């Protein structure tokens, strides 16, 4: 198992390095640079060139690349943001927690709702409940995030005022003590409810259909039939017997969901004015804020690679066949 971990970690590091290098050259070779957006009529070419020199953009691209690489590898320094005028690590540290909060809550909703609805549909295969769940999951899966978000805002915020329409805290929250005070936590949960639900439910459609089909497949296996023949209660057949086995492949889906959730988070962050990595990265791309683009890419690449690795490990932990495969690989 340790050998497997080392191999996967080395591969992951290589993947991250390749992604970063490609991103570095892609963003630097894209038209424009961080000074292009300063289009004030009175800003002269001389002034623009001076700014380029100050930011180090007048140096040859390979030199910029090796300086940047050197500062990451030798000092762990991601540079400073041209737009935010602060170390990239600080900028990312500010924007990552809201995205992690949003994505974690969305993951819970995605799998909580997906598994429950999938099991419900499988339990009542062919009934109107099954048809309704399948129809609902298809709608959720195919509807664009931004449309779902706007509808939710319109109905549950602007019209009824049940949920706040933007941000992650109330205006008065500053006077309610530290962020961990019960009132602040409730307030954050209130603000999180809509964006996390929309992001999570939009992704839950796929999980629902997957769990339903997987469960139906498992319930046709011999060991379930034997259990039924032995008179085991139908509820106990569904849980833990059938569902436990049907959920094994879902672990893989959880790992692979991360990139989709992170990309979906951008739209959700814009619609619900949620401060996070998606909006930060999008703004950085438009402003050609190279250090932030690269820092965000590094972070997302690590999260995706780590998510996949954890999914593999999780899969191996619950499925002896996969565990055996890893051991065999080691033996070879």
């Amino acid at each position, binding site marked *: 198992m340790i050998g497997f971990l080392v191999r996967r970690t080395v591969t992951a590091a290589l993947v991250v390095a390749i992604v970063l290098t490609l991103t570095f050259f892609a963003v630097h070779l894209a038209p424009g640079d961080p000074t292009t957006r*300063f289009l004030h009529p009175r800003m002269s070419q001389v*002034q623009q060139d*001076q700014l380029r020199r*100050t930011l180090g953009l007048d140096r040859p691209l390979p030199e910029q690349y090796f300086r940047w690489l050197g500062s990451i590898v030798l000092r762990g320094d991601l540079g*400073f943001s041209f737009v*935010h005028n602060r170390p990239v690590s600080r900028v990312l540290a500010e924007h990552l927690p809201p995205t992690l909060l949003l994505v974690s809550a969305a993951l819970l909703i995605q799998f909580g709702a997906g598994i429950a609805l999938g099991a419900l549909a499988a339990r009542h295969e062919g009934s109107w409940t099954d048809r309704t769940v399948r129809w609902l999951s298809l709608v959720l899966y195919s509807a664009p995030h931004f449309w779902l978000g706007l509808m939710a805002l319109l109905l549950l915020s602007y019209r009824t005022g049940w949920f706040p329409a933007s941000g992650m805290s109330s205006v008065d929250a500053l006077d309610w003590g530290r962020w961990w005070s019960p009132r602040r936590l409730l307030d954050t949960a209130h603000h999180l409810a809509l964006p996390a639900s929309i992001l999570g439910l939009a992704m839950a459609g796929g999980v629902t259909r997957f769990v339903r089909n997987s469960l139906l497949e498992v319930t046709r296996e011999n060991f379930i039939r034997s259990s039924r023949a032995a008179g085991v209660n139908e509820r106990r057949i569904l849980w833990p017997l059938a569902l436990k086995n049907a959920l094994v492949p879902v672990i893989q889906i959880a790992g692979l969901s991360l990139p989709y959730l992170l990309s979906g988070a951008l739209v959700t962050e814009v619609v619900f004015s949620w401060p996070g990595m998606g909006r930060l990265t999008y703004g950085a791309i438009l402003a050609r804020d190279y250090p932030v683009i690269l820092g965000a890419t590094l972070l997302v690449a690590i999260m995706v690679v780590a998510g996949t690795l954890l999914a593999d490990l999780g899969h191996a932990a619950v499925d002896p066949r996969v565990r055996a495969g890893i051991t065999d690989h080691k033996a070879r």
Partner: protein
Amino acid sequence: MVIAAGVDIKGVNQLTGGESRFEQDILDQLFLRLFEEQPDYAEHPPTFEPALAQGFTWSEDGTVIRIQLRSDLEWSDGVPITAADVVWTYTAQIDPDIAWLEAQSKDSIEDVVALDDHTVEFHFSRIYASRLSDLNEGVILPEHAWSKLPFSEWRGNEEWFLDNLVVSGPFTLAKLEPQHQIVLERNRNYFRQGYPLLDRVVFRVIPDRTNRVEHLLSGQVDFVEHVPPKRSRDIERSKRADLISKWHRQYTYIGWNGCQGLFEEATVRKAMTLAIDRNALVEALWGEMARPALSPILTSVWAFNRNLVAWPYDPDQARRLLAEVGWEDHDGDGYLDREGRTFSFELATNADNQTRADAVVLIQAQLRRVGIDAQVSLLEFNSLWERHQNHGVDAILSAWGIDTSLDLKYAFHTDSIEDGKNYGCYSNPEVDELIARARRQARPETAAPLLRRIQQILHDEQPYTFLWEPMRLYGVSKRLENAQPNPLSAYFNLEEWWLAPKTGAKTGLKTG
């Protein structure tokens, strides 16, 4: 009070940030300038009201201005504001390591000298009309607090300035949560007794314009700027909000690329203007919220040439003019051609602006009627401008936001082809001479005849087809009193705003 903002600020140091108009507006609430420019430029050059300064006198030759500072001013930490702060701010503004974006405004200032704690002199190398405006560019910074960090370390260290923030303006920054909210609170050391009237102003960052309007209509915020014209009626009909409209300091144009031949001839450019129905464009895209533009000096500015007569929409006349210079449909394919070349060109704009995207499509259809093939390109902003700066776009639909200096060198002087924004290579020796003379005038008023002549030539030669001047629309809660946004700043008199209790309602459209 809660204000919906489209963007946030990146920090508090104007010299390393201050990139957006919004950021400038917020920094103007934290730091005072020497003077406050007034939005009274419709009939005469803008006036300047004292802020940090109490008064000023010019030397007889007009190259030295002596400014008397108020003696009752303090930074928020209680340290007096003195002439030393003004001198030190100037040295920071021109420092190459800081590379301030507006440093060019200080090019003609030779020296800044503190005569005593409350008297400072600015020495100019030449006489020109916008000296006061140039010396007033930029807020005055706290030397005692910020000089501890060498200029060479200012870039990349915004945290340090946030940690060492002292202010002179009506508000101080209580909290900055990137992309979420900016919280301003009353500066208790502000020199105007009893102001600001609001204890706290919260700017919530809401990137989507439609969402911002919905926040206003549902009572979640009290003020919104940049209201989309299509949503103005919703605000007018609302029981919760009013609409304020002001003429914006911006004009939208099509810039013709005269560097590559097709639009080198003034006759062709004039024909293009005649072939574009600008009134129909304004009506379709803006309704009453914009008016056709005629000149790079806005209709609402004192130096606008009121003798200019708008070129009409006249496709027949456009065809005749083009025929005069050889552009006719010789091969009968429906498109004009000359010496075997079809009259086809790229009309580009930035894809993220829906109004401009709609405009280029309408213009494409109008030009088709006179036999011109305009190929529409909707490009990402940076890609568009890099090509445009290299003179690689045939025609661009874009806009300039302008200040009140009325210096037209940026886009219409021959020197600006290499070092400026004259990307269409427009060149006219008479215009060059007139611009140079206008820049040398001691007073803005004496430059007026020169500016009028320049406008007339540009009108005749059409290096740009001037399309429209938009209004800027603001949505204001009916509870909000005394909000007077203007083209210089949406938050011009923020210190005088106040919120009425939640009962009662005002009605009507506020216009300006």
